[in-house]
């Protein structure tokens, strides 16, 4: 990545954090993690985040400019897959929460327009927008908790003796490698002086806190029915109300869709940047249209058909990328 994206470490951490947070609000439809009890879910999430942190540290240690072209070559298709799957995920959530909704083509069109605007505004503008949307999401979470307080029951928590086998099974069900770890590490390392403080522990701790809160209020409200919900957080949002306000779920869903827009814009921004590195001849808006074409190809190929296959392809690509980075030595700095 010879041409560097100029963004402060805390802004980059914020972007990566918001992108990772989105999965806590909008459960991936194809990868339900709600089959575990809250206790097991929290433990499995903690293990998952520990592994992510370890992968992130490894990437930071091993990433360097020697691997640039190879990394770009493998990360770009992975990001196209990730963006395509995220687009499917967002459209499905939108259809799920809305009574009357736009046609799929219109929805995809609006997402592409938003991504175009976000990509060409730059990463710094995107991070400022993300911080505002994160603040709004925090307010949404507060309202959500307040609205379901009368329905919380401690007796609804399913006691589970946390055996290692159960924990590993829960971890296997919900674990996945996110592309955010890769481009976060690479953007940090491909600077003239890689920063020491990158705020990664704060991001992962925040993720664990939010996920744990969602597991707890989900199970305390829904009891045994929690494990059968496709979108447990949205179900809770539909249950709760504050005073005469009974349809707060509409507000919550709007905020969570904004998170989705930030995440997919970030994927587009990184994919465009990688495309520019791989194809310097492409100028102007060329990389964006190339990336959009790739994402649409993934969307149309995988939508309602091969989503699982696309997901496992993505995981395989990221795993290969990780192994390759670990094996290719980092370029020593010139003496």
């Amino acid at each position: 990545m010879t041409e560097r994206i100029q963004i402060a470490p805390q802004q980059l951490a914020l972007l990566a954090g918001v992108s990772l947070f989105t999965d806590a609000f909008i459960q991936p439809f194809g990868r339900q993690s709600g089959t575990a009890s809250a206790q097991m879910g929290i433990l499995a999430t903690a293990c998952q985040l520990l592994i992510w942190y370890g992968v992130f540290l490894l990437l930071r240690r091993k990433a360097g400019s020697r691997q640039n072209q190879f990394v770009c070559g493998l990360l770009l298709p992975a990001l196209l897959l990730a963006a395509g799957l995220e687009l499917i995920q967002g459209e499905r959530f939108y259809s799920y929460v809305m009574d009357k909704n736009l046609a799929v083509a219109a929805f995809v069109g609006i997402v592409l327009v938003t991504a175009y605007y976000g990509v060409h505004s730059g990463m710094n503008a995107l991070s400022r927008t993300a911080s505002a949307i994160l603040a709004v999401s925090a307010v949404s979470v507060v309202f959500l908790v307040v609205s379901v307080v009368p329905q919380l029951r401690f007796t609804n928590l399913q006691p589970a003796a946390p055996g290692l086998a159960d924990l590993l099974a829960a971890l296997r069900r919900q674990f996945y490698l996110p592309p955010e770890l890769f481009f976060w590490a690479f953007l940090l390392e491909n600077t003239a002086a890689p920063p020491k403080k990158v705020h990664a522990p704060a991001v992962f701790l925040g993720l664990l806190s939010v996920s744990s809160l969602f597991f707890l209020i989900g199970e305390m409200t829904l009891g045994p029915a929690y494990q059968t919900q496709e979108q447990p957080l949205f179900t809770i949002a539909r249950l709760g109300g504050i005073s005469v306000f009974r349809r707060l779920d509409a507000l919550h869903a709007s905020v969570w869709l904004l998170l989705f827009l930030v995440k997919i814009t970030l994927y587009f921004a990184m994919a465009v940047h990688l495309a520019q590195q791989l194809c310097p001849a492409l100028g102007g808006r060329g990389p964006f249209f190339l990336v959009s074409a790739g994402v649409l190809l993934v969307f149309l190929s995988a939508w309602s058909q091969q989503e699982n296959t696309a997901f496992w392809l993505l995981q395989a690509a990221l795993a290969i990328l990780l192994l390759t980075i670990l094996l290719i030595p980092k370029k020593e700095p010139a003496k």
Partner: protein
Amino acid sequence: MKVLKLLFSALLLSALLCGCTRSGIGDKVIVKAIFLDQTDQYTAHLLVLEATPSADAGSAAEVTTFLTGKGASLYRAIQQAEDSTVSDVFYGQNELLFLGPGLQQADLFASCDYLAKNAASGRPNMAVFGIDAAADRIPLLEESGKDFLDHIDQLTAQGCYLTYLYQMTAPDQNAVLPLLHLKEEGGVQTAGLRVYQNGQAAGIWTGPAVGLAMLLSGQDQIPPLELQAGEEGPVTVILRSPRLSYECLPEEGTLTLHIRLTGHVQQVLGAGGLYQKEERQQILEQLNRQMETVFAAMQPDAFGPDWDLFFWENRFRNQNDALTLQMEQEGTLFEPVRVRFSSRLKSV
């Protein structure tokens, strides 16, 4: 300023995504209750409000009507009901689901599961009731639809057992369904609670068992209890601040859950009128014993090897998980003596 522009753009985009601009309130019918039943086919009645909005508040009107559909599946029945009107059917304010006698005996949980997964018509906070009126009687309520809804509001305000749709989707298919009796003139009254174990109807709780079930499920606004005061005959008892306290104690290598009912008897009404304080004191012991008898009759239906309607097993496991699992394997966990109920009501 640029950030604000970005934020406003994003918010505007999300507003465009919600589809709320397609029809005004005058083009919608607002569903207030859903009636479902099954005989040889599924029947769906949607009790809807048809609004005729007006800038003059005095001339604005709303009329209740039924949209009816029948079909080989619940989906088709609801679809036909929705298609019977040109207006948009709006479910956003619907919080009532009534299940007819046919559905109460078969396909209850499958139907609730379908509704829960159907984000359009099934809101998880719908209160679910079993109603004794067959599907062909329901449209007769059309003219008194608003009165019917008012009766339901009154019932819930006075205190009745509430089960929500999401509770009917638990995988174990154990649930308590509040029953309603539809009177000839269109009013409703409570008719007990039907208990389901593993998806099958197992019994009906009536009388003071309903109030006790409400307390056990965490609902504290219970209606007056109809009890027997020995020679005095039946009395109506109003409690103030009833609450249950739970304590799981180890006893001789096992665990026992002690449930204690406390509160105050505020009023007792008998055939001879209102009981005075001394009279209330005299029958207090009988009332307490009777509550314990009611609990003993409910216990086998509430707590068994495959059903645990009030999550008592969680209390055992929170005390000692390993011992609880051992008791479960030995078959001693569900013995009646493992859960002891005592009533310690006092007079005001």
